[in-house]
């Protein structure tokens, strides 16, 4: 099960994931990010503190937008990942390609300093 919440805060968008992302529902995550880009969001925070599982289908969604983020100067920061999920990002080296912070405060700081 996955639920996705979107909220606007100050100058940024928070996308909060709750549950498990796999091949059955990664399209939902894809739609939310696509919408955010279409709405010209320039600062996106992904709250992963309630994310319990992610497979390559979900990781692939993030990867597929890295070029768009670059081209459209979108700052995208993930925070709150538990150690199991952080480990999965780490195995593929995605923690080198995506900005990942421990806490919301650190993530916001990264968002507004960029």
């Amino acid at each position: 099960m996955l639920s996705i919440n979107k909220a606007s805060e100050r100058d940024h968008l928070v996308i909060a994931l709750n549950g498990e992302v796999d091949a059955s529902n990664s399209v939902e995550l894809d739609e939310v990010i696509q919408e955010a880009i279409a709405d010209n969001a320039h600062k996106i925070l992904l709250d992963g503190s309630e994310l319990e599982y992610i497979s390559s289908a979900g990781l692939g969604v993030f990867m597929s937008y890295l070029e768009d983020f670059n081209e459209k100067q979108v700052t995208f920061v993930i925070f709150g990942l538990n150690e199991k999920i952080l480990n999965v990002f780490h195995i593929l080296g995605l923690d080198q390609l995506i900005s990942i912070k421990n806490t919301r405060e650190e993530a916001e700081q990264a968002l507004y300093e960029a």
Partner: protein
Amino acid sequence: MKHELKLYCEKSRLAELRVFLSGILSASGLNEITQNQLILAVEEVCANLIIHSHDCNPLNHIELEVHINQDTIIFEIRDSGKAFNIIEYKSPEINAVIKEKRKGGLGLLLVRKIMDKIEFETDPSFNTCRLIKRLKSK
């Protein structure tokens, strides 16, 4: 010890696969990070078969056997769809995945990084993919 699961070829069944694996692995004494890695690797192979070899046909199924031995855990995944030789498949470079804005291709890379050994066999009735993890290795 041996555990078996018959998994129907629908993506919505992946959650059921995770519950099955987590039940087995939680009794294994492996830490949570390793348990999650193993669940992920098995799911990646099964998701791949469900989507690419079986076109998500819910009438088809995959058979999974988990053998927990003294020094290894072996996940044996059998199906009778189009043979997908995981050993011959070349995973894409991460940079190419980003450039081409691909959403797929990372799964089997994960499997290779997580497992210690991968075997694949095919005969006219079944394809068998064996994922082997050595215990106390990493």
